[in-house]
């Protein structure tokens, strides 16, 4: 066996080990119910509960934003993040938050990912301004 082959095999072995090690970095999506039960840090995907209030008052605290999220079990809970409210937050199709539930039952997210609809999908044909009114 050639030395290069040995090194290649070693690297492959390292690769497999790393893949196993890196499984820690992976997570599946959880729900509020489970998060409350085991109290650990989880990832929850859900939709913005549009009828519940969103709190963001930059004059008071620019780094506090709160909203309500409905998870895949249809449970709605308050979520807090320590960051300014993001642009176009209301338009997000899906919100993925990572964090845990605190003593008050509020989900404290340290990370948030928004999935926004692609640019023009639902947009109607753009009409020439005003001209459409006359026709």
């Amino acid at each position, binding site marked *: 066996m*050639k*030395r*290069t082959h040995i*090194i*290649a095999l070693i*690297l492959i072995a390292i*690769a497999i080990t*790393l*893949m196993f090690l*890196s499984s820690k*970095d*992976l*997570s*599946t*999506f959880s729900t509020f119910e489970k998060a409350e039960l085991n109290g650990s*840090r989880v*990832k929850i995907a859900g939709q913005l509960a549009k009828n519940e209030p969103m709190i*963001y*008052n*930059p*004059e008071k*605290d*620019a*780094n*506090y934003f709160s909203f309500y999220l409905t998870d895949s079990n249809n449970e709605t809970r308050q979520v*807090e993040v*320590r*960051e*300014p*409210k993001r*642009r*176009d937050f*209301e338009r997000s199709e*899906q919100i993925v938050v*990572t*964090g*845990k539930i*605190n*003593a008050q039952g509020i989900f*404290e*997210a*340290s*990370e948030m990912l928004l*999935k*926004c609809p*692609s*640019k*023009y*999908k639902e*947009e*109607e*044909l*753009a*009409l*020439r*301004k005003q*001209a*459409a009114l006359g*026709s």
Partner: protein
Amino acid sequence: MSEVTYIGEHLWLGYLGHFAVTLAFVSALFSAWSYYKSIKTDTSWFRLGQWGYIVHGISILLIIGLVLFAMTSRFYEYDYVYRTVSDSSPMRYLLAAFWADQEGSFLLWMFWHVILGWIFMTKGKEWTAPTMITLALIQVFLTSMLLGVYIPFFEDDFKIGSNPFILVRDVYQAPIFANADYLTLIEGRGLNPLLQNYWMTIHPPVLFLGFASVSIPFCMSIAGLSADNHMALMKPILKWSLFSAFIFGLGILMGGAWAYEALTFGGYWAWDPVENSSLVPWLVLLAGIHTNLIARSTQFSIKTTYVYYMLAFLLVLYSTFLTRSGILGDTSVHAFTTMGLESQLLLFIFFFAGLGIYKYVVGGKTIPTKPKEEHIYSREFWMFVGALVLFFSGLLMTASTSLPVYNKIFEIWDPNHIPIAIDDAMHHNNKYQLWIGVFIGVLSGLSIMLRYNGANWLSYKKKYVKHILACIAVSLLFTALIGSVLRTFAWQHHVFLFAGLFAIIANLNYLVSFLKGNLKMSGSVISHLGFGFLVLGIMFSGLNNETITASAFVQQDFAEGDGIDKAVVLIKDEPYFTSGYWINFKGDTLVENLRKYKLEFSKINEQEEVVDGFTTFPSAIYNRDFTKVEALNPGTNRNLTYDVFTAAAPPPHMQSIEQAKDTEDSLKYLSHLVSPGTTFEEETYIATVGSPMFNHDFNDSDHGDSTKYDLTVGIPLEIEIKRTGEKLNVTPGLGLKNALVFQFPVVIDKLGIKIKVPESSFAQIFTEEDKLQYEDVILSRDQTIQWNSFNVTLSGFDRSGNFDNYTAQEGDIAIAALLNITTQGGIQTIQKPVFILRNAQQYSIKDYNAVTGLHIRFSNIDPASESMTFRVAQDMRTNEELELLIANDVPRSDLLIVEANIFPGINLVWLGCLMMLAGLLLSFLGKRRITT
């Protein structure tokens, strides 16, 4: 709808375009076939192959020309034009708009294949035909992406390609297409404002030239595997690969620079799947270049070279699949629309993967294997390991980037499969790629001073060990020095730092001691030096960056995280002190759809003296109709050793009309009844009410030019802020236009209040016609009488016929009376009521003056007595109390949410990358000199 004969369409362009697409497809196929025949049967086919590719190239150029022509002419009947251009699109972004969408970017890719193919046709020598077969086949697949043919497949239509000449009325189902002249009614959507910048003009062509150039080593590898003189190929293939690695690397670097300049995340690399998927083929291409160099010098690693080159191309295809199939939707910040060509892209990958594997299996046998093994003290051995590490890096990245693909595959088996995702891609990749960086740094230092084949190792050994030990010692010294400045928080960081420094020092040493500064030979040294600097830059900017606007948590008991709040709120003209800087938000300027915020920074020392001052301009880009902020761009202050990076956002209610409305709806207005001349006091201010002002010119950009209003009224207020004693003059009011009432509210940010005049105030000031009590007033010329508190004089007549609200008809007799009116307070006005005799009927046009509140009609002329009868009424402004609506706790509009970061050493990142590329370019140019 199909019976409608549409007006104004330019269908000839579409017909020509469809023809050109078909011709491009057929001629590419013909070219590939002819090249193939020229090898297998008769060399006379070669000319046909060449001509086929020339015709193919011309067709591609024609397609591009037609699309660009349709775009400049704004032929909105074509969907592609409709999607990318609007009436207001500036033409300087024409090219950006052209390749912003899928079809255009495919065309750009094909364009480069055409140009590279044309060059190869003249320079390829004996490799021309076997290489061009594959290139022409690639073009067949790419052109098929534009065919736009639907083939019935069971119940669905199977779509082959997406044609850039498809008509907008074939794409959308809308009632508007019942109109024959629908084109006069529609306007294109135009380029996303986010993409309207110079990066979008220069980045895609470079990156796509990079993509396209990777095809050449692939095609040449296929050609090589079909022949048996492999060593003869190693020189020309290296030349093309070096060019490709240079351009491709430049494209990726430009992407990073764009991200750094335009994106608010504050960085040049985010391990985003889209970024990774273009970095991976580049790394594999670099691995190929390394084994190619080995092969050229020692005849080892020919097979491996083919594998890397072929993989690099296949990974470009895979990257295309990932970014264009929409599969990354959940994990990437880059928004992509799907073309519905997923299966076609997969077929594309599988075809060429199959071709590569087949050729490798069949042709691989002809590659000579050397009986001897690489010497462990030879350069090639360690270069080979280095190449393996590069490949390995790409493998790791692909493994994690492909998670959405695994999820998709699992979903086919198990519809209940719960998708898995990387928790923190940034952290994950940094953790593993750090070790790749360590290996590359160390290996590049160790191997550069070794010789091919381990020539004269025994006599060289001593010198080598001496140099290496010296380099290690110097590197350790620097690691200790720099490590004390860096905010490292893991031992791995020290190892990484050492690897970077060792790469720099070993390569510098080689350049000085061995090459004696001979730049011609130093391509690889410069690249590896660059890598070392890149490592330093990554460490400084990544570890020592500092958020100067950061503050510790106010709130206890918050989830783990970095424990700091990063943003602060700045109020206009109120300087804010943080981390040694005074930051002052000085206001904003609006140019076209870009609002620039001006942030003035002054750095002070402990004696509170200003030691440094600079200004940054973060900005917000609005959408086309100014209803919302489409993007926020950071502003950066560049310095040699550090950058100050500022991201700013206006408060939510200033970001879109929707949010502004929500905020307005949430305000609670309290009614204040006030009389002119009186004063009222609130907790934070004292307000003095003035008399209503009529026809006040509201300088209100939201409502356009207020002079266009039929009637306006403003209530002047002088507001004294109790806390500061400052006095402000504001005028909230109302405007009337075509029976619609418009509000001109006033927001006072310093008090957090908003003042409106309710619409009902109009009725209070202006009495409706049916409630007016008219009285007859009879006047003769130059006579003055007293009516109520007014002196009214009939000073003359106007027979010109040019009166407001009057259109002359034949036979009309129209006279206006000129009435001079003086109020008790001495205000003089002239009112002009009009008397009309039309078809023996009497009419009158009322004249109304808001200041006097007088309504006057000219009702009769008595020719005998020369006396005129007027009907006069006055607005019933008996109720002196006016209503004001005042809301408290109104969100301020003069504030900005700001995050400012200092990135030290960011220029080392750029320097390192540029040196890596310069090394590649130097090698490319140098090697070319040798071959010619």
